[in-house]
């Protein structure tokens, strides 16, 4: 995840929108640069393009024009992003925002090379310029290209897909959304923190992507993707000593409607979080050493993201991200010939997963969503691919992992939902704790840092508990664990069943230059990893004094 984006949070994130208030107003206005194409209004927002509208005709015109200009392939994406955010700090609503961004992106292949141009100005005149710019760019860059692009085939479709939501978050009033968070903060404030100061910050944002995709191969795809992104974090500070401790709520974004907020156990958890932050202040600092780690799904999802999701991205393995996100230790020669994990581990890439942030009907190449294994019983069997990449590893079809953050961005290979399958045999978290002699249970995500080949990592959680002789013990603080990816996944020796399965995720996985954000989810049950190196972050802070305690892994 990208740290800076995360800090800025949803309130600063780009795009959002109008709801139905003015929906009866026809949008026929003239902009400075020509006629702006009207959108069809409907309650709750705008239906962007339906077959037969002016916009669809514009897309077809631009595709024809690109062909005439010598493009061998062209796609046009018309996308509107709507985002609404509510931010609350303690008892104060610090911000309500409503953001909208609408524009058109034209992508072509000419002389075997990509070209791309995009504008907020959705009109025939503007579109003509974009096609010229994209074709010009492709032709100019073709001189720098070693081999022409060769897209894997895809069937042309005319289709519609919408995130199956039960309650449209855009139709819940801002007032109700803000009041919900204020009520939660009031509940947190009832927790006794022994006279110390409690600070609570929350936000809730919802986002919708309304996207029309048309390609020179005849696809016409309309999608409406809805996501909801709540977050809260609580800090207890002791003003006398300057000590403070924080605990973030375990609630994470999902590809669902407002029903997700209403169904989440906010009331209990926000009070628990205040208690946890308070308890953390005086919790026992962890003794560094080797432990069996029980990683709860509220934590493990991000470990999966960093150490399985990223290494199995084909663009990284091919060196396309060498200058930024990095490469991958899972090089192409390891495909179908590498033991990634113990045979308890099966990990699937799945853009069809219910509630997943990366769940779509079709990717931004027009390839239908599917579920397929990346790791099958511990063996590395496949990568995440796009139409551009599939043939590079001699696969006939793309797995459909192309995605662009905005109408203004070039689509490229992005992570789908990548999830760890639960144990088919019954095994509960209680069973796992009972079965552990010297361990630590970690819940929630805090600090995640992993190298550019996704090999060496150091992660921390929100809360940690001692597990001793089969029993859950006291809270521990300052816990970080360090390992290397295959060694770590080969140490997985116990896995819970589907009754403990949870879906985590993030809106802001960063990759590419310019960097694009990708929403992605990861499901998993609790899992245990044996004999993992745990360090104490506080003693690390004391720098040189403690270096003698540090062993290292080669």
């Amino acid at each position: 995840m990208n740290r800076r984006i995360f800090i800025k949070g949803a309130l600063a994130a780009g795009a959002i929108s109008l709801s139905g208030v003015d929906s009866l107003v026809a949008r026929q206005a003239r902009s400075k640069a020509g006629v702006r194409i009207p959108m069809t209004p409907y309650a709750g927002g705008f239906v962007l393009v339906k077959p037969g509208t002016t916009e669809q005709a514009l897309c077809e015109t631009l595709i024809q024009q690109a062909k005439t200009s010598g493009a061998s392939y062209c796609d046009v994406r018309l996308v509107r992003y709507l985002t609404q955010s509510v931010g609350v700090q303690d008892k104060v609503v610090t911000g309500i925002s409503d953001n909208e961004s609408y524009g058109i992106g034209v992508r072509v292949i000419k002389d075997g090379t990509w070209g791309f141009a995009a504008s907020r100005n959705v009109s025939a005149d503007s579109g003509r310029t974009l096609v010229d710019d994209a074709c010009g760019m492709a032709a100019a860059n073709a001189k720098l290209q070693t081999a022409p692009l060769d897209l894997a085939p895809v069937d042309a479709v005319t289709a519609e897909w919408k995130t199956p939501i039960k309650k449209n978050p855009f139709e819940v009033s801002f007032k109700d959304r803000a009041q919900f968070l204020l009520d939660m903060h009031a509940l947190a404030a009832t927790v006794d923190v022994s006279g110390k100061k409690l600070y609570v910050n929350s936000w809730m944002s919802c986002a919708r992507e309304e996207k029309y995709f048309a390609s020179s191969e005849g696809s016409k795809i309309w999608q409406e993707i809805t996501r909801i992104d709540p977050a809260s974090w609580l800090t207890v500070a002791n003003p006398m000593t300057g000590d403070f401790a924080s605990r973030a709520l375990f609630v994470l974004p999902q590809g669902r409607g407002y029903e997700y907020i209403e169904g989440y156990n906010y009331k209990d958890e926000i009070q628990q979080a205040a208690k946890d932050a308070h308890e953390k202040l005086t919790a026992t600092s962890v003794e560094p050493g080797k432990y069996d780690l029980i990683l709860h799904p509220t934590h493990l999802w991000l470990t999966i993201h960093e150490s399985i999701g990223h290494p199995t991205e084909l663009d990284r393995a091919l060196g396309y991200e060498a200058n930024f996100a990095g490469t991958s230790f899972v090089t192409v020669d390891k495909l179908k010939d590498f033991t990634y994990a113990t045979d308890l581990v099966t990990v699937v890439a799945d853009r069809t997963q219910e509630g997943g942030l990366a769940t779509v009907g079709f990717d931004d190449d027009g390839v239908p969503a599917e579920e397929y294994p990346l790791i099958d019983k511990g063996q590395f069997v496949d990568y995440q691919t796009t139409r551009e990449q599939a043939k590079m590893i001699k696969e006939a079809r793309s797995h459909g992992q192309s995605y662009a953050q905005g109408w203004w961005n070039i689509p490229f290979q992005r992570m789908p939902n990548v999830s760890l399958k639960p144990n088919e045999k019954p095994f509960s978290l209680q069973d796992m704790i009972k079965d552990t002699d010297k361990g630590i249970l970690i819940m929630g995500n805090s600090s995640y840092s992993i190298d550019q080949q996704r090999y060496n990592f150091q992660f921390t959680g929100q809360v940690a508990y001692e597990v001793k002789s089969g029993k859950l013990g006291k809270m521990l603080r300052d816990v970080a664990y360090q390992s290397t990816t295959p060694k770590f996944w080969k140490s997985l020796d116990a896995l819970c069943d589907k009754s403990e399965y949870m879906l985590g995720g993030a809106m802001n996985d960063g990759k590419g230059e310019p960097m694009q954000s990708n929403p992605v989810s990861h499901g998993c049950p609790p899992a245990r990893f044996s004999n993992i190196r745990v360090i104490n972050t506080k003693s690390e802070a004391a720098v040189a004094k403690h270096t003698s305690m540090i062993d290292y892994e080669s």
Partner: protein
Amino acid sequence: MHNDVLSIDDLQSIAKKVLSYGKSEWAEVELTSGHYGNLRYAANTVTTSGAHVNTNVGITSVNGKRAGSVTTNDLSEDGLRRAVKRAEEIATLAPENGELMPPLPPGQSYVRSAAYDQASTDRDYAANERARIAQLAIKEANLRQLQAAGFIESSTQHRCYRNSKGLAVGDEHTRSIYSTTMRALDGMSSGWSKAASHSIAQLDPQTVVRRAAEKCVAWNSPRVMDPGTYKTILEPSAVADMMQQLQDSLDAREAEEGRSPFSRPNGTTAIGEQLFSEKIHLYSDPNHPLVPAGVYEGGGQPLIATDWIKDGKLSTLRRSRFWAQKSGKPAVAGASNLVLDGGGQLPEDFLYNVKEGLLITSFWYIRDLDNQTMLKTGLTRDGLFWVEDGKIQSGVVNFRWNESPITLLKNVIDFSRPVITAPRDGWDGEPMLMPMLYVSGFNYSSQSDAI
């Protein structure tokens, strides 16, 4: 022309129009119009390139202590009217925000900044330059039998702010960044370098390409060193990463509420404390001739030259207008750039005088470990070397490190002349002016095999 960047005058007249549609007690409008072009290459071939143009308008309408904010890029009259109406509706719905401050009145004074390079705004010229730079890197990589990956972006951006009390300000800037990685064909060695400037002509891509290639070649067959604390030389870009981390915590409210490394008991702060080496002078200045930057921040608040650390003492913390009022102290705006003063020698010459230490080219994946001490963790990447008697002796296998920017600035032994640079990890700001730093200790916690 279609798809043009709108001039500041055009943006101001849109802002005026937006304000004229409003019925709220007061309102403010912010507009940004920009063109952004980029090119990527990898595996010695061009991969993607693109350009886009956009204009965004942000409108905040306020009644009493209730505010509503809307952004849109629909600049049609109908679109703007709709956005204003929506902002006013949200302001009605919103609960009161006790921390909302009244708008700044007219008569603010702004510095002038020279962040606009006319030549860089020529789209054809900039596109040709991007292609020329890519070609240069690919040619060098082929010549040396290496693999190049890189990214060139150049942009033009105009901004304006206007409120219904009559305050209006605008600025414009251009920015170009170029970075490249050179890797051995077998993936067993890697080098990186980066340049940033408001002018594309000042990027000096030859030097960037040469440095990345030389680092890749020099790193071959690295030695393994034990984790521990070593004297260390940080290249300017790595220093910029650490200073960006430090800057995030320079906040008075967090400190006075007891939530920051600069908190002291009973709501006091570390301002005035000798936290750093007395050589350290960290400041921001939007009018700096080498790193010109934006002249205002949110709400039209002027950005001015500000000392953050002077003679090794923490001099000030940014203080929002609300917190200023609440604490009875003057507001302190943030920073649009950062400058860390240094010595007289250029980085290359400075290295000749270093007796011994590890040389860090760049950092990766910097994350918080302990907020009370500002302890961070991260990795070294694309060029870690052992230096002895002013010469690179060998590459060193990468490390994970755990270190605090505060400790880093405390441990400074010496520094080079500052040069224009930019952080590597998660950066989207203005170029910075940073020296190479030589520090008495840096804490490496484990070996990282990644290349």
